[in-house]
């Protein structure tokens, strides 16, 4: 469903090496590498946000994308419940862990950071999409959250959804991903 050929992406200037990447339907690919190699930039390029300096991206026509960034939805002071957040993206609350199911009708700004993060992540994970791009999804999650996320990613991919995960969490990447691509710094950096 996705293929990149010698893709160099960035913002004002190139931020990645030339990347060849492919993803099949139902596959989970992990992207790792040291800080600054352009993992998040690559996701942004796949989502059409970052600039492409050279190479190309081939996406299956009609592909529906969902993108989770490291930015937290700005909900402080906003009377928005978890259920309403999920409804906005079209995500179903079915399958949420029990510790969140019982708090889904509470305002997001009255939840703990971890609970809020997981709900915000779930809203993207369960949104109608064929390709899901996740950027450091385990940030702010405790061990139970990481286990639940890992299990859910496998379940989601079984339905044919392709998933690309950027993460520094080696144990999570190993447990969740079918294949891992390690990005390296650009020459001379």
């Amino acid at each position: 469903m996705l293929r990149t050929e010698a893709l160099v992406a960035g913002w004002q200037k190139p931020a990645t090496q030339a990347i060849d990447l492919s993803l099949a339907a139902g596959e989970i690919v992990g992207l790792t590498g040291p800080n600054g190699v352009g993992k998040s930039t690559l996701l942004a390029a796949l989502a059409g946000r970052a600039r492409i300096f050279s190479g190309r991206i081939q996406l299956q026509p009609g592909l529906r994308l969902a993108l989770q960034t490291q930015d937290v939805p700005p909900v402080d002071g906003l009377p928005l419940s978890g259920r309403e957040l999920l409804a906005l993206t079209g995500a179903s609350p079915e399958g949420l862990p029990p510790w969140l199911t019982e708090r889904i009708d509470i305002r997001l700004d009255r939840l703990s950071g971890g609970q809020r993060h997981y709900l915000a992540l779930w809203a993207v994970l369960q949104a109608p999409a064929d390709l899901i791009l996740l950027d450091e999804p385990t940030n702010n999650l405790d061990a139970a959250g990481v286990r639940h996320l890992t299990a859910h990613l496998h379940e989601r991919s079984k339905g044919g959804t392709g998933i690309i995960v950027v993460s520094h969490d080696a144990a999570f990447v190993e447990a969740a991903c079918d294949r891992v691509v390690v990005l390296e710094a650009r020459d001379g950096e």
Partner: protein
Amino acid sequence: MGNELFLIPFLTGLGLAVLLPLLGCYLRLRDEWLAALAYSHVAAAGALLALVGGLPPVIGGISAAGLAGAGKRLFARRLVGGASYAMLLLGGWAVAVLMAANQPMAERLGHALFDGQLYFAGPDELWLVAAGVPVAMIILRLLSRHLLLAHTYPDLFRIRGLKAWPTQIGFDLLAALCLALATMSLGVMGAFALVFIPPWLAFRRAGNWYSGLRWALVLGVLGYVGAFLLALGLDQPFGPVLAILLVAVGLVVA
């Protein structure tokens, strides 16, 4: 209230008291509550310019605010952080005060707009409100989900291919026109009080978005009815009475 002399202003204000708190919730969502004050001042300036130019003030007010709302996006990149609203507010206020100071025929209307003399509202204003408020509420309902999604997940909003202009320019224009309509009847500060205080309280108290909208609506309507009766009974200008009442309620509830 059975007296038609007061019934028309009451119904005109009531329609606005339903619309403005709901509009205020979305302005607050976008952190654009200052826009209410800006559009009101621009509308006041437009109304006075129209009056001096021999045109109906309501046309001038709505046109000026509409232009400001639609044109704001042209300068969005250069005027970030609410600067565009501060510029519109100061520009509108300056033009309105200078017109009122130098044109005798503009002085009376200027006082009415800044004092908030709802009792001057006549059938023309009532018809505009009766036609405009339902349309504005339908548009707000249609924009609601996109406004919320664009605020919480701007990237998801974009990659879904959703068009940004109805949500951005469309909402700016809607807010400007509603505020202009309200300013013509409730005055600058009366309109601002209804846009700002009920949503502010609702956002603090409500457990979810739709309950927030209900809170804002109820607070706005109750505040409006109370202020109308008080101002009538005490023979005071409506705008300041509404503002004082809402501020008092705001401080107690907060």
